[in-house]
């Protein structure tokens, strides 16, 4: 049995398209390295070979297999995106929910902190932290991104909660003498679930772009590959000018289609959950 909500969602074309793209790339990233077991960091192939039978996506200037790089790159980019978005979601939702529910001085002080972090240019912050670390594995990069991108989530969750708090059904539950905790878990959180999920999708696409951004300025992972790192090397060795298209197009396309389809997914969810936008 398909739950009715999923059935309705599947009727939205944008949802179908975006979910299929995300699922496809994700599966490629997860299963790919097991099927195509070439080491992405090995330097034994001839350099700058265009795609052929032996190297389906060609090789880079150091003789690394670009298909292997792409498969591992997708994997670690997704890992960084997922971890970073979960970190910022956890911080953002907690701060937003406490501020919105408690109100008063708690709200004021939490929002002050949030606004301060919000006002800091996050790319500067990321650069500072990243430059300070000599060795950066994917988890570190995810942490850096996650710790700087939560403020808008906190603000959004807080304002959602504030508007939910004034809804009549809350007063109705209160008049049935339900405890605060029960109201929180039965009335408030479930009504924000769709919203939080949308925030999660947006955060993830943002985090993957941020990872690429960090990598491009040379502050990405120091070990292993990610989509950003492939692009960084491609850029460093002027692959565009030299016409080595197989080097930068596949990772660029993967990154763009992942990020775009995540934005599209969040738009389609928004359309579904807020009837104002529903094309009637």
């Amino acid at each position, binding site marked *: 049995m398909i739950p009715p909500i999923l059935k309705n969602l599947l009727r939205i074309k944008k949802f179908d398209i975006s979910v299929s793209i995300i699922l496809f790339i994700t599966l490629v990233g997860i299963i790919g390295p097991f099927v195509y077991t070439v080491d992405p960091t090995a330097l034994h192939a001839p350099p700058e070979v265009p795609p052929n039978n032996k190297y389906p996506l060609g090789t880079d200037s150091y003789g690394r297999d670009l298909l292997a790089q792409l498969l591992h790159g997708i994997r670690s980019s997704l890992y960084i995106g997922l971890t970073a978005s979960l970190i910022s979601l956890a911080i953002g939702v907690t701060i937003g929910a406490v501020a919105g529910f408690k109100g008063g001085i708690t709200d004021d002080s939490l929002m002050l902190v949030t606004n301060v972090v919000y006002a800091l240019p996050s790319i500067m912050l990321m650069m500072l932290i990243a430059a300070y670390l000599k060795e950066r594995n994917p988890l570190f990069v995810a942490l850096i991104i996650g710790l700087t991108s939560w403020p808008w989530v906190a603000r959004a969750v807080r304002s959602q909660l504030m508007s939910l708090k004034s809804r009549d*059904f809350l*007063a109705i539950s209160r*008049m049935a*003498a*339900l405890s605060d905790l029960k109201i929180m878990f039965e009335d408030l959180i479930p*009504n924000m679930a769709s919203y939080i999920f949308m925030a999660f999708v947006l955060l993830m696409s943002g985090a993957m772009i941020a990872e690429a951004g960090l990598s491009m300025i040379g502050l990405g992972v120091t070990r292993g590959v990610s989509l950003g790192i492939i692009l960084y090397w491609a850029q460093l060795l002027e692959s565009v000018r030299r016409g080595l298209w197989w080097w930068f197009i596949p990772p660029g396309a993967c990154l763009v289609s992942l990020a775009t389809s995540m934005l599209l997914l969040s738009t389609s969810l928004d359309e579904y959950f807020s009837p104002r936008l529903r094309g009637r």
Partner: protein
Amino acid sequence: MLLKVKDLSKTFIVGLLRKKEIHAVRKVSFNIKKGEFISLVGESGSGKTTTSRMILRILKPSSGSVIFEGKDPWALHKIEDLKWYWKQVHGIFQDPFASFNPLYKVDRILYQTFNLLNIESDAEKEHLVKESLKEVGLRPEEVLGRYPHELSGGQRQRIMIARCYLLKPKLIIADEPISMIDASTRAGILKLFSDLRNNYGTSVIFITHDLGLAYYVSDRIMIMHNGSIVEEGTPDEIMEHPKHHYTMRLKEDVPLLYRKWKGF
């Protein structure tokens, strides 16, 4: 006296730097007897809804008191006392859609009331829920197990009233309960309120912007304007000899069915 409201006021403070006080309700006082049907009439922004929420113990008053059967609900803090209060004093709101949490089946609204009632057996709960639905003119099999958006506004508002039939409170505060209901089905819902009063001696505070409605249903009308009650009296007193200039204007400006305005 069932309910005594004395000098009830609510002031909202808005703005962070330049604080501004908004006096939503100013020193409202009135009493309600058992079985009385009174209307609180005012336009939007007159403070009538704020007043009702303070009596329902949802919005804390800035000053003044609410005394129900000798007790101030805002002095009650123990969960048992609160259960007692909401069992006796219950509310119905304007928008029958907003009253339901859209994620749950409508059954929840009714079963919630058992938190206030001492009923243990599931069979009895089910029986009582079905009985209450029948009393408000709904067929239990047509509404139970459905989600709010699958029912019409009229059906949803009837379910809210069924909740009151389960609780049989001594006082119901109904905030514009029929203003979002189709005209052709309003009378049936109004009748449910008078049935509650006639069968169980329930007192009703009816909050409305519609003078005609208040005139039709109530024993006593209170006119509210800018946070204060400016006039009160029986429907006939209010319509025939309004004293306050606001009431006079209201009476002049209400469109009538059997009389045409002068100069129109």
